[in-house]
């Protein structure tokens, strides 16, 4: 078998959805070109943007940082990174070190912010309090709160996340199956925030399958943290991910068709269901919020109650 682009004999990928077979050099180029083309086509980044990458140290964020660095080197954008330390013992430390190394190598500004310093609670402490919601729900809300606030403090005009095609397909199916239409209207390559205090978020890897992101990192010899989060295994997302992976075996284009179909109906969805948010500031933290208390502060109060209840029960 030969590379369908350059005829080289050593191929590293056979794309079942397109029939393309690529050698290492042609594969790397194809990913870089595709991501930069999507950025241009969907106007995700403009010249002069100050771009903050949500850099976990995992394969997705390391890939997007590597590709955006080409725009930084050509002085088209300014680049910086934010890493969140959720406080997950035995999992997060290695990833944070990898993230710090990448930021240092590129010579970009990098801030590491922990749940503990912002909320006085680590994710491990939250989950030990026997809370009413799943770990991913707390983690997602608290992480988004920190990333937005930190990006704003760093003067960022865009926040980049490493969401890939698998993530996006899962989100579409999860929200559809749960009947969460408000959330569905917010899925897309970029956000259109209702408040100036929300920094625009973009997903340049949205059309790259997760496996190809993994191959890219290895092909480019980029250091990345590959371990799975110990809290995510039992999540609804993990169940959906398994269903989509099983379906993809005999239907290799299923993730692309889910995304394409969704992007078409999203226009109608937004028109019909877009929630008319009247954003105000959270009475506790001052961040933008649809309610008096933002979700992060609401969750923190909930968890504090759980911790007090547990202490009370332990004493009596």
């Amino acid at each position, binding site marked *: 078998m030969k590379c369908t682009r350059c005829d080289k004999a050593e191929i590293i990928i056979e794309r079942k959805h397109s029939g393309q077979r690529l050698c290492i050099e042609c594969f790397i180029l194809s990913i870089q070109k595709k991501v930069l083309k999507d950025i241009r086509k969907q106007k995700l980044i403009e010249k002069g943007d100050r771009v903050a990458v949500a850099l976990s140290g995992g394969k997705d964020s390391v890939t997007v940082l590597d590709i955006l660095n080409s725009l930084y080197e050509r002085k088209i954008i300014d680049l910086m990174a934010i890493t969140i330390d959720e406080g997950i013992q035995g999992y997060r430390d290695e990833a944070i070190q990898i993230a710090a190394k990448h930021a240092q190598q590129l010579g970009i500004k990098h801030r590491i912010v922990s749940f503990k310093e912002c909320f006085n609670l680590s994710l491990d402490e939250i989950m030990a309090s026997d809370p009413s919601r799943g770990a991913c729900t707390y983690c997602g809300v608290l992480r988004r709160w920190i990333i937005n606030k930190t990006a704003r403090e760093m003067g960022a005009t865009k926040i980049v996340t490493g969401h890939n095609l698998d993530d996006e397909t899962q989100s579409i199916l999860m929200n559809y199956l749960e009947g969460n239409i408000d959330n569905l209207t917010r899925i897309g390559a970029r956000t259109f925030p209702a408040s100036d205090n929300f920094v625009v978020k973009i997903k340049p890897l949205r059309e790259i399958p997760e*496996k190809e992101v993994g191959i890219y990192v*290895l092909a480019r010899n980029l250091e990345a943290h*590959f371990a799975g989060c110990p809290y995510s295994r039992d999540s609804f997302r993990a169940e959906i991910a398994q269903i989509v992976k099983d379906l993809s075996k005999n239907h290799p284009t299923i993730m692309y068709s889910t995304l394409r179909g969704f992007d078409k109906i999203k226009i109608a969805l937004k028109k019909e269901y877009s929630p008319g948010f009247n954003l105000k500031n959270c009475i506790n933290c001052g961040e933008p919020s649809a309610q008096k208390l933002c979700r992060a502060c609401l969750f923190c109060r909930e968890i504090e109650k759980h911790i007090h209840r547990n202490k009370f029960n332990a004493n009596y």
Partner: protein
Amino acid sequence: MQFTLINGEKKETKPLKKNLTIKKLLDEIETPLETVVVKKNGEIVIEEEIIQDEDIIEVIHIIYGG
């Protein structure tokens, strides 16, 4: 005829069956192809690649649930 299999932290020498492909090996060790990248002697290879005598096969897990 044998080859070395590195799967995560585990490293072992295994007897080599004739025409053993990466795909067959992954089936044998019950590892879904879509969650791993495989290197043969340090180079990324596709699932149809045939394992040869003394090859070093590394299975890198890139996708976890969630």
